């Protein structure tokens, strides 16, 4: 249910609560413009998603990128790495649907997702991708474990190989395709950010579970993934400008900081010591994984914070309107 507690009095006055004076109108925003609001109340609704969702963004990313890691390792003859990636991917692929179903308001109706395929709904498209990817990866892992039905296993691997990358990036499209300003305005970066985070996560996980002499590609994926992700995050915040300031505030800000600290420390450790020391690879991998979880949480929380403050909804729209007006003149 919507939080209908009255907002704090001080806050209300600041946000343009009708008072007895003529200058009640509008809060002075940080950009020096004035804006009206309805008692400072939000315009768009905060998401109703639970903690399962950011965790799924993480596990889905691990599953998607692990499928690629597994496939390429297999093709290049790195059997040991391919095996780690296969089982990591299968585990992540097994957890993912459980998290998603648990988050539904009516979990017993999860099969309703399969009533249609709808290209206008990233969640619909994603459900089908996950169904294919999860089914294929788990089939492949089970057959590998049992050592039977090799042709079926190869087929399953191929399906998982192809559905892995979209599984890792569609979640970016999912959150970007909303009315939440900080997600919607970041539509050019989010799929890329989530893809980079997925590559880093899968690389880090494989580096933990693979002996150092076979884990070179996993380490490089982890390091390259974190580097790309840090760059993308920077670019996203810069381009978002005012709307992106939620990444510096509150929980989203704390998760963003934690994410940066963990990924930088973890990938540095992997890059410098991961080649010789398994301990360093495990510690570095764990740090990167923690950083990637924190990143997903940061993006998740940013959406809530962005919805909560009507300025993020109104001011960019006002800017858009005045630009259009100027263009028309």
């Amino acid at each position, binding site marked *: 249910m919507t939080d209908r507690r009255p907002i704090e009095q001080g806050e209300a006055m600041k946000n343009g609560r009708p008072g007895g004076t003529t200058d009640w109108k509008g809060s002075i925003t940080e950009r020096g413009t004035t804006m009206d609001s309805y008692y400072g109340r939000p315009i768009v609704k905060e998401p109703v998603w639970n903690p399962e969702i950011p965790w799924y963004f993480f596990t889905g990313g691990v599953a998607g990128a692990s499928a*690629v890691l597994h496939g390429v390792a297999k093709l290049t003859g790195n059997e040991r790495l391919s095996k780690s990636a296969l089982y990591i991917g299968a585990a992540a692929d097994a957890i993912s649907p459980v998290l998603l179903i648990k988050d539904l*308001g009516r979990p017993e109706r999860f099969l309703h997702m399969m009533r249609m395929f709808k290209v206008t709904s990233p969640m619909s498209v994603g459900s089908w991708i996950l169904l294919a990817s999860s089914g294929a990866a788990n089939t492949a892992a089970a057959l590998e474990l049992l050592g039977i039905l090799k042709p079926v296993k190869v087929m399953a691997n191929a399906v998982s190989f192809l559905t892995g990358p979209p599984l890792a990036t569609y979640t970016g499209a999912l959150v970007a395709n909303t009315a939440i300003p900080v*997600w919607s305005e970041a539509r050019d970066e989010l799929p890329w950010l989530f893809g980079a985070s997925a590559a880093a996560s899968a690389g880090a996980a494989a580096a933990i579970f693979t002996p150092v002499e076979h884990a070179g590609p996993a380490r490089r994926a982890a390091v390259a993934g974190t580097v790309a992700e840090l760059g993308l995050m920077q670019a996203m915040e810069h381009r978002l400008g005012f709307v992106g300031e939620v990444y510096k505030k509150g929980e989203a800000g704390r998760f963003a900081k934690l994410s940066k600290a963990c990924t930088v420390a973890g990938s540095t450790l992997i890059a410098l010591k991961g080649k010789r020391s398994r301990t360093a690879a495990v510690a570095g991998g764990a740090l990167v994984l923690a950083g990637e979880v924190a990143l997903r949480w940061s993006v998740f929380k940013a959406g809530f914070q962005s919805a909560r403050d009507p300025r993020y909804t109104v001011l960019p729209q006002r800017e858009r309107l005045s630009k259009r007006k100027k263009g028309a003149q």
Partner: protein
Amino acid sequence: MTSLAEPTGAPAAWPDTWGDEAKPRMGFFTDTTVCIGCKACEVACKEWNLVPEDGLVWTGESYDNTSDLNANTWRHVAFIEQRKPLKLDGETATVETDAAVDPEPLRWLMESDVCKHCTHAGCLDVCPTGALFRTEFGTVVVQEDICNGCGYCVPACPFGVIDKRDLPRSPDDAPLALPLFGKNEDGRVWKCTLCYDRLKGGHEPACAKSCPTDSIQFGELDELRERAEKRLEKLRAERWNGAQLYGHDENDGVGGFGAFFLLLDEPEVYGLPPDPVVPTAHLPRLWRSTAVAAAAMFVGVAAAFIGGSE
């Protein structure tokens, strides 16, 4: 894909999908200039649609104790107390508003807000189960026996209308098939149906029926639009301060509203977005970007194998 949210006056594929059953597009024109804030619409809506109680609180925000539209409030009357003249002669208040007596005249704006039944509806576009659909009247309705509570429509609405209902399940409800995930709440999303059941029976929606001043006008959308334009002309001629139509333009970001408004100030004053855009307007580009990002991730991971196993 390219037909997504193109600036047209008609919802995608509608009314062709309905064939012979198609009806003219119906909607609301809410003329806030005659709203008296009686909240009869809120009450009638709750009664007719069996919408549950949603908390009894005093907000201290003028006469508004409902605050916003949500799963359990489908009509919401907003109250705004302003130190602004009701009528303007250029930049100054007209004599009618007694500006000479009170240099800061008070005006009290009231607006009965409702689901906009957008031409390009974000909630409907993103619904993965097909629970949200376009009716033969061109309205947007949730099928509650299909909705599985994924919640995607909630942040997809540019107006923050649709919402998830969390209430204890009725003891009569069938037991959940998955006890592992047992939940003791309704869990589905709810919003205004434009009284789909009443429309089917040839009646006007409960809120419009109960409105004593005809602030809420129900009818064929085309006719309502004409009526609204005439009303706006009259108000402008009478120099009403800030009179404007909201959601009347077929070329706006959601292709025009099925339920539009005549306001006396900027939309954000009423808690409405000034330039709403359906999220799916950007989807073709977003899908392309997602596909390229997926390919880049693939190439990136494959490139990590250059240099061998170590």
